[in-house]
């Protein structure tokens, strides 16, 4: 199984809502990532988990809260988002540690904030 599965595929939320994005992989990868991608732009790194510990937070606003319940799962909790947070949110995983080599991306969650 070489897939990274993300749910939901689409999400519409108001600025006062709380929602969560979910990501799952069963490749035994010990590094997992959250990226944000705006239309026609490259992905921007948000968070990196290595061996279930948060190792990188790229100065992301606190309205985004990541969680890694176990080595296969990654969540992104959303609260009080702004319309400019509307984007494609991508989960990725890689090998044994947080490395740039061979990232496996999910298909993403297309988020719209109204």
């Amino acid at each position, binding site marked *: 199984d070489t897939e990274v599965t993300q749910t939901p595929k689409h999400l519409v939320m108001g600025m006062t809502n709380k929602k969560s994005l979910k990501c799952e992989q069963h490749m035994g990868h010990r590094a997992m990532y959250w990226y944000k991608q705006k239309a026609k*732009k*490259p992905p921007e790194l948000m968070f990196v988990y290595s061996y279930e510990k948060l190792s990188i937070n790229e100065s992301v606003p606190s309205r985004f809260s990541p969680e890694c319940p176990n080595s296969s799962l990654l969540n992104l909790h959303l609260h009080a988002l702004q319309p400019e947070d509307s984007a494609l949110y991508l989960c990725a995983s890689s090998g044994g540690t947080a*490395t*740039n*080599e061979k*990232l496996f*991306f999910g298909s*993403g969650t297309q988020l719209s904030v109204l």
Partner: protein
Amino acid sequence: QQQVKQSPQSLIVQKGGISIINCAYENTAFDYFPWYQQFPGKGPALLIAIRPDVSEKKEGRFTISFNKSAKQFSLHIMDSQPGDSATYFCAASWNSNYQLIWGAGTKLIIKP
């Protein structure tokens, strides 16, 4: 210094032709140069990658050419097919760093 400049922004190629996308960088510490392919509604997928100790790497119809002295690398797609129509991103990083420096992307359209 941390930028990777990618060109062209968009490219239209006839079926069977050669597609060429170029990237340039400044940081000589970069030691890993991947290319990612992204279809609409999907996440990026690693296509091919190269390290600066070789000048060329080929995988099927896809070739990376690397010019260390010019600090440039390019992706060549031979015998381009409509199924190759996608957005292509070059990237660079150093020392197995988690952070990839991405190019701006090239939207490739292959005309039947």
